[in-house]
């Protein structure tokens, strides 16, 4: 399996990662190796095995529907870069 430059760039864009032009070749190789590994696993016949959704063979415990949290906006916003009128501010998002 091989990956080309544009695929690497698209994957980086989807993950919002900035990558160095010079590193693309090595990313290509590393990711291709991972895909090869997965393809190797895919070649094992698992037709008779039930797919596993989680490595632990357990089910979720559920929570009773109660409000347990109180308003801690001040504490949380103390860590935010910028806030105003109770809002978290981010650079303008144009629709």
């Amino acid at each position, binding site marked *: 399996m091989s990956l080309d430059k544009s695929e690497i760039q698209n994957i980086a864009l989807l993950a919002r990662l900035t990558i160095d032009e010079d590193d693309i070749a090595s990313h290509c190789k590393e990711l291709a190796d991972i895909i090869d590994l997965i393809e190797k696993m895919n070649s094992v016949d698992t037709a008779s095995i039930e797919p596993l959704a989680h490595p632990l063979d357990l089910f979720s415990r559920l929570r009773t*529907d109660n409000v347990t949290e109180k308003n801690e906006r001040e504490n949380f916003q103390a860590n935010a870069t910028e806030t105003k*009128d*109770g*809002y978290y501010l981010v650079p303008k998002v144009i629709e």
Partner: protein
Amino acid sequence: MNKNTEWQTIIGLEIHAQLATKSKIFSGSSTKYGAAPNTQANAVDLGLPGVLPVINEQAIFMAVKFGLAIGAEIPKKSIFARKNYFYPDLPKGYQISQFELPIVSNGQIEIDIDENNKKIIRITRAHLEEDAGKSNHDDFLNNTGVDLNRAGNPLLEIVSEPDMNNAKEAVNYLKKIHSLVQYLKICDGNMQEGSFRCDANVSIRPIDKEELGIRAEIKNLNSFKFIEAAINYEVDRQIELIESGKKVVQETRLYDPNKNETRSMRSKEEANDYRYFPDPDLLPILITDETKKKIKEEIPELPDIKRKRYISELDLSKYDSNNLTINPDIANYFEETFRITKEAKMCANWIMGDLSASLNKNNINLKDSPVSAKMLGEMINLIKNNTISGKIAKVVFEAMWNGDGNAKEIIENKNLQQVTDSKEIEKIVTETITENKPQVEQYKNSSDEKKQKLIGFFVGKVMKKSKGKANPSQVNELLRKKLDN
């Protein structure tokens, strides 16, 4: 394509119903609507490092309830997945949703397409997910404000097959689901507050072709009126495009109710690549037969069955029963007044008449009506036993609406009792006859058919004289006796 091509419209809907839980789907924050920004957004909702989601059992139960009500499959095992995308109102960088093994699959619901015909709409799946926060693009000069109160609210996304062929059918389907979720008490159905919203996938194809056309997705439709208008606009737009030799592109479009048009949302044109994978933070959910059985027992009488019962048992018209079952509030109100009065038709008339008119005029929900079902029922009983006439009842109703007390008190205080004392009525009748000699002459010289009409004139006069309090049937009888002599 030439201009004579006949087009068929294909519509599939994705409905987002906010589940009526007290707390969020994965955290103990409140879901209450209208709080100040970020006062109901805590560590889990903000996606802070190191936090773990814990599933709210009510969200699961409500989804199962919906599945049971639409005859769907509810697999024993269901899993959550991460849907990855970046937007400021989604702090984790992924939305916890379901992809494989959704909680509900392959259900169906029947809709009316006209007076006599019904149609099955298949529901592919319904899955649980968390809502995102809200972005405020307007109130900050160079920034967008993010409010995460909504982040983590439990949603049930209900996905239909493309089984609808016009805007009307889409609206009927939507109304049906809207009514159902309220009956099941799993969603408050409030469209203004966004508790019930919908996206429509719309495409067209030549009527004789099997293959589906390219579809556009119209986002965030939050009223029945807009949905109908948006679909109709979109169908016309697509037909025009194709007939002028252009192509429909697959894209997300936003409906603008002010201009009544849909327009492309360019920012979302990037190929959707959500890279779903099972969320490693959450173990699968187990839904046992026992759980299903327990939830099934909680399902109340559903609107379709109720409607049929009103027609067959209470002898109401199809029109009346449709209106009285639109939502559980009105059905409960009706059933309470019926329990008190045993007069289905009278109750239906008062609820759909004076009560609805007053509610609409004052923009009040039935739940907040100043006239309770008990008050209305008691008033109807007073019409039944001739204490007041139907006409006076309108005055009594208005007084109850204005908070003057219950029917009995109002009738006593305002001295509105119907006059059934025949002596008193006779007195007024005699007076009326004396005062209207020419009409009496006319009556005496008229044919039976004409007499029938003229008697109405006298009844009117007598009622007016008695300020509406005389018993109309007694008045009628007495008048005939005297005039026909």
